[in-house]
């Protein structure tokens, strides 16, 4: 499923938070959005997953405007893993993942065996099959985030939006989570903090600053030392791994 954002603008108060932002994610692509804190990454994603209403511009899912779809319809096409969120009140893991089936349910319809099968399959995919009956609040941060991913997968959508999904996770869980997403072969749009993780997994990157898109391209094209200095104000050098062909960013201390 193709996700297209064209000329989105957002005005909060008298401040222009997003300025004519346009991005396109082709079917099956893994696209990252990078940029410093406050550059508007999360705001852009919130426009896409319909928590914020853009003041101008449209978001198209497979060429169909989001504003013309019901929330139910869009939740059947697009699932979201937001920044690490703590659920209040104590649910079991299974109950939380089951809520991912909401968009496929009618008002009074109850959950049936098919839903439970999907829940099991998704928990299996994130490696938490044994945790179905555990209480969510007793899980570690990494496990909780994987539950959130399982819930998004249970929506059975073709498009996945991730808002800094690896925040607060240690490196093992970061890689584990990104691997699960990558191997699910969905159309993915992710806001990313860590440039090395972004370079490893993304097919394409968009860079944001002050609510504008300031660059785009493959990780190798976009992430040059000059561009990183321009975007983040830090000095870094780029090393290309001979085996994988992936680039890594090495930051220099004391060079801010």
């Amino acid at each position, binding site marked *: 499923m193709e996700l297209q954002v064209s000329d989105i603008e957002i005005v909060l108060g008298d401040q222009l938070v997003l300025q004519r932002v346009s991005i396109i994610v082709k079917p099956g692509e893994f696209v990252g959005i990078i940029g410093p804190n406050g550059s508007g990454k999360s705001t852009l994603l919130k426009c896409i997953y319909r928590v914020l209403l853009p003041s101008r511009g449209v978001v198209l899912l497979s060429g169909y405007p989001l504003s013309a779809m019901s929330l*139910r319809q869009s939740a059947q096409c697009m699932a979201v893993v937001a920044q690490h969120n703590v659920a209040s009140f104590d*649910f079991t893991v299974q109950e939380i993942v089951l809520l991912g089936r909401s968009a496929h349910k009618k008002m009074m319809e109850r959950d049936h065996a098919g839903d439970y099968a999907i829940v099991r399959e998704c928990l299996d995919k994130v490696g938490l099959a044994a945790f179905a009956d555990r*209480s969510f609040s007793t899980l570690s941060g990494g496990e909780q985030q994987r539950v959130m991913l399982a819930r998004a997968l249970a929506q059975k959508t073709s498009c996945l939006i991730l808002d800094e999904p690896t925040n607060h996770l240690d490196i093992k869980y970061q890689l584990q989570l990104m691997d699960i997403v990558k191997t699910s072969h969905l159309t993915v749009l992710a806001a990313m903090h860590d440039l090395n993780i972004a370079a490893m997994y993304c097919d394409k990157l968009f860079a944001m600053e002050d609510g504008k898109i300031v660059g785009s391209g493959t990780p190798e094209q976009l992430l040059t030392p000059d561009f990183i200095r321009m975007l983040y104000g830090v000095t870094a050098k780029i090393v290309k791994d001979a085996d994988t062909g992936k680039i890594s960013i090495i930051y220099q201390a004391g060079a801010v």
Partner: protein
Amino acid sequence: MKPTLLQSKPVSLLTGLLLLIALILSLLIGVTMGSVHIAAADVYNVILQHFSWYEVQPLGVERAVYDIVWLLRMPRLVLAAAVGMGLAVCGAVMQAIMKNPLADPYILGISSGASLGAALAILCGVGTAFGANYIGICAFGGAFIMALAVLVIAGHGGESHPVKLLLTGMALGSVSSAFSSFIVYISNDIDGIQRVTYWLMGSLAGANWKSLTVIFPVVLGAVMFFWSQSRILNLMLMGDETAVTLGTNLHHYRQAYLVVCALVVGFVVYAAGMIGFVGLLIPHIVRMLFGTDHNKLIPLCALVGAVFLIWADVLCRIILPKTELPIGVLIALVGAPFFVYLMTRKVYHFGSRT
């Protein structure tokens, strides 16, 4: 923490069944208890008279016994069940709507609205035209109008978020409390002031079959309705943003649920005054034992609430010789320590764990 045995599915089904049996037994045992001693055989004879398939026993029961059993005890027990059910379920729903474990059915100024209605009726004679239970009717009006006012004001200029609803309820609650205090202050009617105080403590003594034919269906209907809404209630605890990404805008649901709750609470207030603590206590106890999923929580709350209030009322009637303990007093005295005991014994975070 491993899930306790109580949280697994077949066990909660069984628990529901056991609670249903407990409810029926409570009604049958409760009706034999009271300040006047009546033989159990006579009690059941009176009750069975009301079923067409039963042939009335020739041992004629006295008129007084009939009145006590069928016109005083039975409606009172049924009312206790309805009130307990209504308050417990509305408490659970309010906690979901507000996403706040401290919410109870009377939050959002509903209690202040009801008190203002009652104070106006008792001290100013408002609504005497409504007949014998004009105080209840005014309290119902106060509660219901208050809930609607909170909804309308909090919904003004954007969608009503839980915090906005809560603050609006507090503000309007303070205004109507101030009015109540003012009325009490300028009134010279000592007897009336005492009646307001007594009324605020809640009592099931006014039960009668006529009002029950309305209240019981309303409460039962609301319980069934909320049970059918368990997925939305679960989503409410996830928060508005998550709910949107899962395909549901909670705004309209929240409003609809508040109106249904206000209706139920209004009827409860009409029939029994203010009975505090049940609506806060029962949902937490059930949640501690059986988990948060509303698909289990709603029916179990209804049953536990009903059984709890039946026994609380029976105790109120028999614990002091020749007089009745106000039910609100008893519930706080017995319920609060039990609640604290459960809280310290089990890992339960009220959702405040981060």
